[in-house]
């Protein structure tokens, strides 16, 4: 065949959206080809546009630029050969398990007898016989997702797309379901020709996929394409497996840059304003304390994720915050505490707040905010005003999240106070004093 076993190809796909006059690029010039027989994982931090890319691939959304080819044919509208398994299961709560699977066949006008038989057979294969007449609310999360898989397989898709299918499940169910899917896939028990899975779980990607495509955000783009040559079944204790996970961590965390690059520029100034990771300070303190216990205050990020038992996405955000505030540095998949981070970890509650406040004052975003507040009448401003100003740098949703993070960090550092009733953000009295003295 002239497309050489390439099932799906996307060329120069970009997704742009507008808020007011400002233009934001959610996905920038992504090229990707998925071959038959391939299990591809799309891996990246939240906000890198991987879920959007999945919707573009299945035709649920049309890209601003670029094209999607299926077996060499440019696509328009929903691709009938592809289907999605959703993170939230997306089952119809008012239909029984059987009806939920059947409804997919109904849409293709399969006669009643045939579709019931086929649905029953599929439910049997995913181990749900006996539950045909149950409603989704009677099932556990893992079982609900099994229905999701059965429904997707009912239409015998050539391309099976998975949108973080295991991330809403508890650890055990997720583990079980991953194994069962791999068994169906590697044992050729389903007519599926290729699987494309979106995930932010690094281990999951290495465990299941033949190929990992790593994406990054601002704008969403492909930064790395990596083959996984380990034979199935893979073991998480295997040395090669651990090395690979470590490598992916290194790719995703990158390397701590010079302070200037790490901090970015203030809103409205040239250069990119650094988005604050939306994490809680308590979690960050927990991470720093853990590092403080490690030999030489340094450890492997992959090992850290296992020790802390947090998901990789959350850990990456915490690390990013640590780097941004100068508490930790990252190099080659290892994270080390800086002397400042060490001081922070060992300090009392009040001393921590002071260290944190000193660091915040160095962040361009905070510098900009404090200057604005000092210039404002009574040293206070509406949060909405701040948010609108941030919308010049970030998409609306992100601007809102940034404003929230600013409030939460600023409150912890006792730099700012915020009154939810009036929606006013103001300088703490002490900060105003400091200003008078310095004048």
């Amino acid at each position, binding site marked *: 065949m002239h497309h050489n076993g390439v099932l799906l190809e996307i060329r120069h796909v970009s997704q742009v959206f507008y808020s007011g006059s400002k233009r934001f690029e959610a996905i920038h010039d992504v090229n990707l080809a998925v071959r038959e027989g391939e299990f591809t994982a799309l891996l990246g931090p939240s906000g890198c546009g991987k879920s959007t890319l999945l919707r573009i691939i299945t035709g649920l959304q049309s890209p601003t630029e670029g094209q999607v080819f299926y077996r060499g044919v440019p696509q328009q509208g929903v691709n009938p050969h592809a289907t999605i398994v959703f993170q*939230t299961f997306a089952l*119809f*709560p008012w239909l029984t398990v059987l009806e939920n699977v059947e409804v997919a066949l109904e849409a293709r006008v399969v006669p009643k007898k045939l579709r019931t038989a086929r649905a029953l057979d599929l439910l049997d294969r995913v181990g749900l016989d006996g539950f045909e007449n149950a409603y989704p609310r009677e099932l556990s999360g893992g079982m609900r997702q099994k229905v999701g898989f059965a429904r997707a397989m009912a239409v015998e898709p050539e391309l099976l797309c998975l949108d973080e299918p295991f991330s809403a499940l508890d650890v055990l169910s997720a583990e079980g379901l991953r194994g069962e899917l791999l068994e169906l896939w590697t044992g050729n028990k389903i007519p599926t020709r290729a699987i494309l899975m979106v995930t932010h779980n690094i281990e999951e990607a290495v465990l299941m996929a033949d190929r990992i495509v790593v994406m990054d955000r601002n704008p969403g783009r492909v930064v790395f394409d990596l083959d996984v040559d380990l034979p199935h079944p893979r073991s998480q204790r295997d040395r090669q497996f651990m090395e690979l996970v470590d490598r992916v961590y290194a790719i995703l965390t990158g390397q701590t840059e010079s302070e200037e690059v790490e901090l970015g520029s203030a809103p409205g100034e040239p250069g990119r304003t650094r988005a604050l990771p939306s994490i809680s300070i308590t979690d960050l303190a927990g991470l720093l304390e853990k590092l403080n216990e490690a030999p030489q205050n340094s450890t492997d990020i992959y090992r850290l994720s296992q020790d802390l038992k947090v998901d990789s996405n959350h850990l990456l955000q915490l690390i990013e915050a640590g780097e941004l505030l100068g508490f930790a540095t990252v190099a080659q998949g290892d994270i080390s505490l800086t002397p400042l981070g060490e001081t922070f970890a060992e300090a009392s509650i009040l001393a921590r707040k002071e260290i944190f406040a000193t660091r915040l004052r160095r962040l361009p975003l905070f510098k900009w905010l404090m200057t604005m507040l000092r210039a404002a009448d009574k040293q206070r401003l509406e949060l909405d005003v701040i948010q609108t100003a941030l919308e010049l740098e970030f998409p609306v949703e992100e601007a809102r999240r940034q404003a929230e993070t600013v409030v939460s960090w600023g409150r912890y550092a006792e730099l700012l106070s915020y009154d939810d009733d009036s929606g006013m953000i103001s300088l703490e009295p002490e900060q105003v004093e400091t200003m008078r003295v310095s004048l």
Partner: protein
Amino acid sequence: MLGSRLFRVNQPLYRSLSWADVLVLIGIAALLYAALRLAVDAPMALSAPTIDLSLRSLPLYTGLSLMRMVAAYFLSLVFSIVYGRAAAYNRQAEQVLLPVLDVLQSVPILSFLPAVLLGLSAILPQRLAVELSSIVLIFTSQVWNLTFAWYQSLTTIPKELHEVSACFGFNSWLRFTRLELPFAAIGLIWNSMMSWAGGWFFLMAAEMFTVGQRNFRLPGLGAYLQEAANQGNLWALGWGIFALLLLIVVLDQLIWRPFLVWSERFKLQMVPQDNPPTSWFYDLLRSAQLVTWLNVHVVRPFGEAVDSFLLRKSLVHGRVAAPQQSRVSVGRILLVLLVLGLVYGLLRAAQMLSAVPPAQWGDIALGIGLTLLRVMGALAIALSWTIPLGVVIGTNPQLARWLQPLVQVAASVPATALFPAALLVLLRLPGGLHLAAVVLMLMGTQWYLLFNVIAGASTIPQDLKYTTALLQMSRWRRWRTLILPSVFPFVITGAITASGGAWNASIVAEHVEFAGEAHSVFGIGALIAKATAIGDYPLLLAATLAMVLTVVLINRLVWRRLYHVAEQRYRME
């Protein structure tokens, strides 16, 4: 939580007053003018059937009224589904359709009454016109909240469910029956109950009406009650009210309760509920062999046949792409015609309004002020007893289980039917109709409040109740820190509906005819009622528009803000 659904006000509260509202107001002025214009040309003499007050004719009248209600209800349902879909799925249509709906529900239905009645009888054969206009009037009292409920359901369907439907290639029939209808089912059923209550409220007005010399009446329960009141026949009035109550209870037990129980399956929550509604009739139906047999051998195969027929049908239709170009131009032409019509209507309406003498404008302003005072009075009285009682019922699940169904039935008893009986007593008290008008408004609106307070009180978390007990808070302190803030959003929701209802009820409350005598107090409602009765159309138009404007302004400027505060700060979620 039962009540919170029933009387949730389905308003898109995030919008503020916009240009669209102004356009809509203009449109309504034009439409009112057009209908009144037709009314002026209507034939003068009409023979009206006499209403027989003997007990013998009561079953027939009740049946006829029921049929009108059913017809109006299905009309409402169809209208809602079409209108709601258009508003939910078309951004441009939404911008016009929503404000239209929003303002229409504040228009006092009774103002439209002579217009619809006389307008229709100008273009249709007499009997058909009267029958149809009666149904249309009942329809206008049932439809708005249904449409809002449906629209809101459509816009809150989770994104993934839409995506699943698109991903598996659902056609419009499948999408309608497997996604939209089930998702909206519970809201639609609760709102249907509310719509029926609204329909009963205006039944009397819709079946019997005098405009100038023209006297319209239809054989029905509403006309029976009205006639009994006019003649001062207490015996007939009593039986009429009894028949109405019986019908309401029977409908509640045999139709709405079973539907509610059945609709539990459409709950979106993935956790089972502790206190699901129950229905003896539903249980009876399910255990009856005959019903099961019918279901398996007749109902289900028939349903499946219809389903698969429509599935294929809409599949074929789905493939045929509509010629976009011609559609747009036809739409444009229609739009231009509509705008021209509106402009013309507006000009003529303005002309009609200019015929209103300044003294009458003064009356209208004064009337609005007085009615506003009565509405506030009625609300204050309602709040003063519904909050304590509602909290007691709501915080006591045992009591709530017993009283909830009772309150539900009580709420659907139309105050209008009880008006004459209440008047008997009230007119003799000092204050006369001044007091009576407030009480009459109260009768129609207090239930909304009670219901919402019960719902609100039942959401107070047990932990917080324990905490206040552990802190040994005094009774007053407990009310201030826990109970009042918890029920506040619900009180506001109830008050919005209640105040709308009170304005609407002012037309029947401020001007009443009883035992051949007319009683009246000064107010905007009385002005509208009198203008209708003497056929003073310019005054009717002016007074109606003034009232609509007032209600819309109060909603936007007062209630909406309060609602916003309530939602932001006091909602326990």
